[in-house]
């Protein structure tokens, strides 16, 4: 493989992604093989829709999907970062081919340097990045406070909940068209505040919502998005097979127990006995997972019992769970998502699900490592550069203004560290820091792609702002009403830029570096043709550097 091939493959992906990245990005229309239209701004959906052939490209897509299913966010930035990282690695490999190794061809020398750099970067990222972020970024962030425990407390009240709102708003801006962001944000906030758990952790609420999202929402097409709303209770996505409007007293769950197996009067008689029993119990609604025979329907109508048949197993499970003895939930709400067409409702639903997923991963604490490591890597000079962080590292949900703040801060830290290390013998670290810093800056460059001046201006503004305020954004979480001067300034920054989660960003960066080094490890792609039985199979085998067998993918022709 030529070293430039990696770059060109990811560049193609980048060119697609760029169409829907940043404040001026649009949407992608995807026509399925069935002719169904799907609209999306989500990077992972677009990449998986491409149905790429090249094994390396598929490997990249796999990495992106793995990351985005875990965090629900960041797939577009993933591709951008990966591209720029590979580009910088390639550029620096071209500049100084490692002469110490005695390679014949220039290409293989470049490839070897690239691999070496990628390995170094991975090493650096997994060992030092976390500490660096803890020291250089987290102090400027603020904690995502979740201030309600009772369902009466509304999201609009607390400052922390305003952060949740802001975080969601910036997420939706990257997923929906701008005019729909506000509505989607308030809808999701209402969902979160309505489905309050009794004294449970927000993460368990988010986990519950993610797990049960298919049963917790209903898609309705033919209406504008603004008609979407929350409906109290659970919605069973089936019509009545037999409906008699009674006053509902008791709800009973019957799961496929009544079905006529025997043709005989006995069956009918026993059925009537069943219904007589049900009637005696005062039951007026029967939910069934399977289709019922006309005899059951007619007996039910005579007994004044409503029947809903073919209810999905998930809905029945949730129903049983909610109506069992120990009730976990205080209230259950169903989210009705409206859109003019199926493609749109689909997009809205997946965006909201991903938003909840993103909140969940934002909630996870960034670091579990002890503070010892921090002290070891960062000596005293470093800690004077950065203010001592008021937030505990393990505190969940650190957020920071979006629009490149994370990248600017981390780049600054990386460059400072490089400067510090330049005298040391460890040349590798300084090169790697430079590499990462260069790659990171592409993200804000793309965000402000309309003008270079705007990019520089924003960078200046943010860095100056941080310099002049010791804990600029964290103030806000404590109480924003008192600090009139500072808070209003930081509020303005947040208003302008939105918020993003530091832990999501960190996971993203780590995943990108892993993916890049994995890509560069691939030495050759062999396409073999093997005949198995009568069928011809084409096996595409990836060989790792050092002839280590990595994975075999069967593509049957």
């Amino acid at each position, binding site marked *: 493989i030529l070293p430039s091939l990696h770059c060109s493959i990811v560049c193609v992906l980048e060119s697609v992604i760029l169409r829907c990245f940043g404040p001026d990005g649009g949407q*992608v229309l995807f026509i399925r093989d069935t002719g169904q239209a799907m609209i999306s701004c989500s990077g992972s959906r677009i990449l998986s829709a491409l*149905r790429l052939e090249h094994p390396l490209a598929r490997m990249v897509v796999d990495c992106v999907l793995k990351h985005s299913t875990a965090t629900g966010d960041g797939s577009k930035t993933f591709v951008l970062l990966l591209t720029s990282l590979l580009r910088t690695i390639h550029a620096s490999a071209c500049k100084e081919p490692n002469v110490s190794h005695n390679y014949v061809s220039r290409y293989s020398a470049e490839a070897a340097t690239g691999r070496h750099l990628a390995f170094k970067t991975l090493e650096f990222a997994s060992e030092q990045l976390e500490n660096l972020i803890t020291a250089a970024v987290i102090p400027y962030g603020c904690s995502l406070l979740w201030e309600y425990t009772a369902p009466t407390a509304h999201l609009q009240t607390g400052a922390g909940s305003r952060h949740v709102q802001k975080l969601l708003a910036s997420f939706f801006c990257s997923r929906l068209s701008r005019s729909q962001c506000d509505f989607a944000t308030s809808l999701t906030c209402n969902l979160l505040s309505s489905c309050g758990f009794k004294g449970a952790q927000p993460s368990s609420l988010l986990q519950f919502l993610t797990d049960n999202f298919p049963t917790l929402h209903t898609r309705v097409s033919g*209406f504008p998005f603004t008609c979407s709303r929350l409906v109290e209770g659970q919605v069973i996505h089936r019509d009545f097979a037999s409906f008699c*409007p009674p006053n509902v007293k008791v709800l009973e769950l019957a799961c496929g127990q009544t079905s006529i197996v025997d043709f005989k009067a006995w069956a*009918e008689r026993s059925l009537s006995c069943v219904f007589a029993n049900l009637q005696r119990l005062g039951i007026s609604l029967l939910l069934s997972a399977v289709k019922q025979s006309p005899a059951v329907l007619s*007996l039910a109508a*005579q007994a004044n019992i409503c029947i809903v048949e073919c209810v999905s197993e998930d809905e029945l499970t949730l129903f049983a769970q909610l109506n069992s003895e120990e009730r976990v939930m205080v209230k259950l709400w169903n989210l009705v998502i409206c859109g*003019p067409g199926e493609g*749109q409702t689909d997009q809205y639903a997946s965006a909201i699900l991903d938003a909840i997923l993103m909140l969940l991963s934002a909630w996870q604490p960034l670091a579990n490592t002890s503070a010892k490591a921090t002290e070891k890597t960062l000596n005293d000079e470093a800690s004077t550069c950065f203010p001592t962080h008021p937030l505990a590292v393990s505190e969940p949900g650190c957020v920071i203004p979006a629009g490149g703040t994370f990248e600017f801060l981390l780049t600054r830290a990386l460059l400072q560290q490089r400067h510090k290390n330049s005298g040391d013998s460890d040349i590798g670290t300084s090169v790697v820091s430079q590499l990462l810093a260069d790659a990171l800056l592409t993200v804000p460059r793309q965000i402000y792609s309309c003008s270079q001046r705007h990019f520089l201006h924003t960078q200046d503004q943010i860095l100056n702002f941080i310099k002049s305020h010791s804990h600029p954004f964290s103030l806000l979480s404590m109480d924003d009403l008192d600090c009139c001067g500072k808070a209003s300034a930081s509020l303005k920054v947040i208003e302008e830029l939105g918020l993003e989660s530091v832990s999501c960003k960190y996971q993203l960066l780590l995943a990108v570096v892993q993916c890049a080094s994995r890509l560069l490890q691939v030495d050759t792609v062999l396409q073999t043709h093997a005949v198995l039985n009568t069928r011809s199979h084409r096996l595409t085998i990836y060989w790792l550097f050092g002839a280590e067998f990595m994975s075999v993918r069967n593509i049957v022709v």
Partner: protein
Amino acid sequence: MSRLVKKSPSVCTDLPLDTTDSWKKLRVLLQLLKSCFGPKGRLKLLHNSIGGHVVTTSTSSVLLSAISSSLPLINLIKTSILNHVGRFGDCGLFAAIFCLTLIEQSRQSGLRGRAAAQLNKHLLDLCTVYLRQEDCGCKMELGFNSSHNLTTLASSIISSKPACVLTQSEVLHMSKLSVQAFLLTVPCSSTGVKLGETVTVPVEGPPVKHSAVFPGLLVDMPDLLSLDNAKRPHLRPLRAVVFSASLAGDLSDTGDGVIEVHEGEDTDSQILDRLLELGKQVVEDEVKLFVCQKVVHPVLQQYLRSQDVLVVERLGVALMEPLLQLTGANPVATLHTPVPAEAYGTVHDLGIRQFGSKKMLHLLPAGESSICTMMLCHRNATVLSELKVVCQNTEHVLRLTLRDPYILLGGGCTETHLATYVRHKVSGQLTETAAALGCSQEECLLGLEGFCRSLQSVAMALEHDGGSSAMDLTHAHHWILPADDMREEVEDTLGPCSCGLVEGGPNKPKTYLSTKTPAFSPGPPCADAMAQPRVLDSFTAKINALQVAVETANLALDVRFIIQDMN
């Protein structure tokens, strides 16, 4: 082992709205839909490439579902409009024309995608808020104490579909029937929350004026001789039983089970014996009407007829629900247990109705019932199918008025009024709007102009004979000036505006819609209580159509990349 087929890569299109080809296609679609719009709209003949059935139509639901395009954007727009029509039954062409014109105008204005979308959304919000206001100048409250406005609303919808080929008096007749059918399906008792149902029966051949609405149900019955011969029962109401299971003597409900029959055992006769026993019980219970959704065994039929019971078989699942509502019966599907007394229902009387060659059994409800049958007659199958679609849509729109008892002025007057209102409102607070939306004042004006032009162009699309559209400068209502009268003084002799609410006159200055229209605050229609609008539009359907159109247009403008799976 199933055969795995390699997936082929997808086909990608970058910036789909920038190609001239897609512009051409969108424009063709717009022209096509515009030419169908309104009472004077041109008809379209639909037929597939292998011959067969030919459909004449100008209805958006029929037309759009017949169109398939290679351009994904068109299919996207089509689906949105069809979904809207499926929910509301009206304003489909309005939504489609508005959406397509808005896309065109927004692109022509050269605005950035996001700015255009945001502006459109903002202007839409202005419109919907204004339409929901109490003092909205193009909205009227619908009073249910008089059927006049309901009939006008119905006739506006029916007359806007020229493919029905109706004369003025036929339109009036059909609108009255539609309103009558609608009123019959509204239950009288205040406790009943469920609306009834109108069953439509199309009859080919007789003239339109023979169409009628009957309370109760009309069901097909191949041989009605039995009713003539039967001694008419004197006792009213008549007891009826309704079966939902097959009475043909088959073993239908065995599922996947295996049945072993012992030698010498005759299952068929056993079942038939059971059926006859059932028949006997029914006769003993003095049932006079025996209805089955599926087939009834001939022997049982014969037995029941000999006992003066009227048998109706093969009713079909569609008529089951209205029949159960009408009779108050419960469906019976158990053959081995006696029919419980509470399963019986009643009908008041039976009769025979003849329409052309078709003879039908008329079931009259015994008490309060909100089931009625609408008999639609027309000369041939093509116009009849269009009439059926139109009548069903009309019923749907009339039902919508129960939720929002408002109506909008028709004939394009709502569109011109709304455009003028938005123009006035935004130009009054241009600085604030631009600041709130984060765009420049010039961009704001460009977007505003595009939006208002799109609204006006819907009104202009109503004219197909080369006439020009005009608007007065006080109420902002819509006038159509005939093509051959382009003199200035013609304004003096013009009649009322398109909706009929504002009188024409010498003192009413007007402006052509195709020229630059001034911004002014449109006044409410004159306080003349006697003036009644001639053309009305559905309030609920139009608001939804506006929202769907803008949302779809914004989406289409926002699409930057198309990926087509070619598998």
